């Protein structure tokens, strides 16, 4: 093989190998990109508090819609977890509170992490959580039962065709929390 061709071969192979490494890194970069994408498009219900001072209540624009509340635990969940009520009539444009109850049945001190989901997804960006137990880890003593509050505000420009919003929380046990107690 001519020297010139050999060096062209080596340099091209090197460039392609670097491309493969960059694509490996890109696979990992998809993780933060996914979060950013979900946040920008409002697909995912945020787990950070909306700033209460930016919310101005509009009682004059209030419209009654139905809020359905769901609670679930995953297979690791030694919890009893349920909303205070299954459905509730709520007003757009007003700050309101709802409550969930969680009961630690594990026999140990454990920490719960809750993830929120809002359906239809289109409503997620109008549903602003001012206070939510999903923002923080929730430590529970052995056999502790306590109420968990969500303070929220539904923006009055919620599209007119949405008359029901479903708010669903899944309560997870923080990984390792059980093992540490054993």
């Amino acid at each position, binding site marked *: 093989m001519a020297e010139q061709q050999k060096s062209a071969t080596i340099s091209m192979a090197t460039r392609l*190998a670097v491309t493969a*490494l960059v694509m*490996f890194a890109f696979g990992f970069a998809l993780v933060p990109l*996914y979060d950013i994408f979900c946040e920008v498009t409002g697909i995912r219900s945020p787990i950070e508090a909306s700033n209460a001072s930016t919310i101005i209540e509009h009682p004059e624009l209030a419209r009654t819609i139905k809020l359905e509340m769901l609670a679930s635990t995953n297979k690791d969940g030694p919890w009893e977890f349920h909303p205070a009520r299954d459905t509730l009539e709520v007003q757009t444009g007003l700050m309101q509170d709802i409550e969930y109850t969680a009961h630690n049945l594990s026999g140990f001190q454990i920490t719960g992490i809750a993830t929120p989901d809002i359906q239809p*997804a289109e409503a997620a960006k109008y549903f602003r959580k001012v206070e939510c137990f999903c923002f923080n880890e929730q430590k529970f003593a052995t056999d502790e039962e306590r109420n968990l509050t969500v303070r929220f505000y539904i923006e009055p420009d919620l599209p007119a065709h949405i008359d029901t919003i479903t708010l669903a929380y899944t309560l997870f046990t923080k990984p390792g929390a059980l093992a540490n107690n054993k």
Partner: protein
Amino acid sequence: MSDSTHDDHDTKPTGLKRWLFTTNHKDIGTLYLVTSLIMFFVGGSMAMMIRLELFQPGLQFIDPQFFNSLVTVHALVMVFGAVMPAFVGLANWMIPMMIGAPDMALPRLNNWSFWLLPFAFTLLILTFFLPGGAPAGGWTLYPPLVLQTGDSFPFLVFAVHLLGASSIMGAINIIVTIMNMRAPGMTLMKMPMFVWTWLITAYLLIAVMPVLAGAVTMLLTDRFFGTSFFNAAGGGDPVLFQHVFWFFGHPEVYIMILPSFGVISQIVPAFSRKPLFGFSSMVYATASIAFLSFIVWAHHMFTTGMPIAGQLYFMLGTMLIAIPTGVKIFNWLATMWKGELTFETPMLFAIGFILMFAIGGFSGLMMAIVPVDYQYHDTYFIVAHFHYTLVPGSVFALMGAAYYWLPKWTGYYYNEKIGQWHFWTSAVFVNVLFFPQHFLGLAGMPRRIPDYPTQFADFNMVSSIGGFLFGASQLLFVWAVISSVKGKQKAPAKAWEGAEGLEWTLPSPAPYHSFNTPPKVD
């Protein structure tokens, strides 16, 4: 470096050493092809067990967990063990001969990329004998289910790593060979279609195999090192895995089909005795399909829930792929139009491919439509769809390629009668096997289940009978290959009357080193 030994004549070590240390593109191509044929039968015997269990409703032979393992490992073996290495084997054998090069550009890398495979398959097959059994969460490896795999989980991950590394190195080698080692006068637009499709496929491999490696690495750290990439309890998201996986997975399905398009584009002109119709449109269609494959991945995930704009985008993007694919199909038909057709085995497989791949393409279009996908998702309809694209699609193209080039490889024709029998039995039984699965899917039978309600019994029995007969007919292929290796009828340099291309200017069997002095291409 310049005095590295490079034999000009056919001296090579003999016995096992020849195969272990070989850097010759033909030897390595043979290794790939033989390995993939073995893996085809390994994966095929798993399919036979699956069809045996599904022959009748109820649980007869196989424990459900083992059934799930069979479904999972069958897919992994067929995708990474049978189809992909077979195409790399064809690339190794044919690309240097088709572009007028003496060998591949990076012969030692070539040896390494092949010899990773046996280790990867050992890891993968070994999982059947580990506590907890082989992976059973499906080849798509979705968490959290796949994280429940027993002791075999790291074996699965490292097998995928090795297979990925092998594919990436193979792809690098192919690109460098095509870009740097073409004979003088062989411009890009004069390259045979098979070389073109492989060039594009190799770029796809380099772009997406590392992403799969990243995804399985994240699974590994989620399982063993306390990360939470896909664990909702730790702030991760299991749906993210599906996005990362299908960012790899959708181009992957084109990795398995584009070289088939190349093969068909070689065979159809040869037996129509006409040049390929619309060569440049074929090149652009291949490139368009490759590009579109990167931006439609979420059509595998419509049922995960997606805003309407996303559904529309992925639906329309997916349907767009039908246009370049249609260009290809019509070009093949136009190539045959008013040609002097003869129907030797390679041509039969090529025509079977065009017809039946189109069926798989149409059912793909059906599933691109979001509202109906909600019905078809995870049913036997999708099983029928991708088996139509992969079996009478990719596998038929591979069989056709083998029959087409066997005389060049061995120097002897295969037994034409056996080839014809192989085609007709395969073509009939593949339809008996997979066509009823469309109906099962439309009627609501979910995929990946070992048992089913009695309403699905008849079609499943038909499908199983087709499966056993299709499986048995593949033994004819082995017979045909042996008939060529131990051949009686000597093949001339140009083994087929209408075949064009540099590979047919070399004697049959092709000499150990292809073109020591580059041929001149006008």
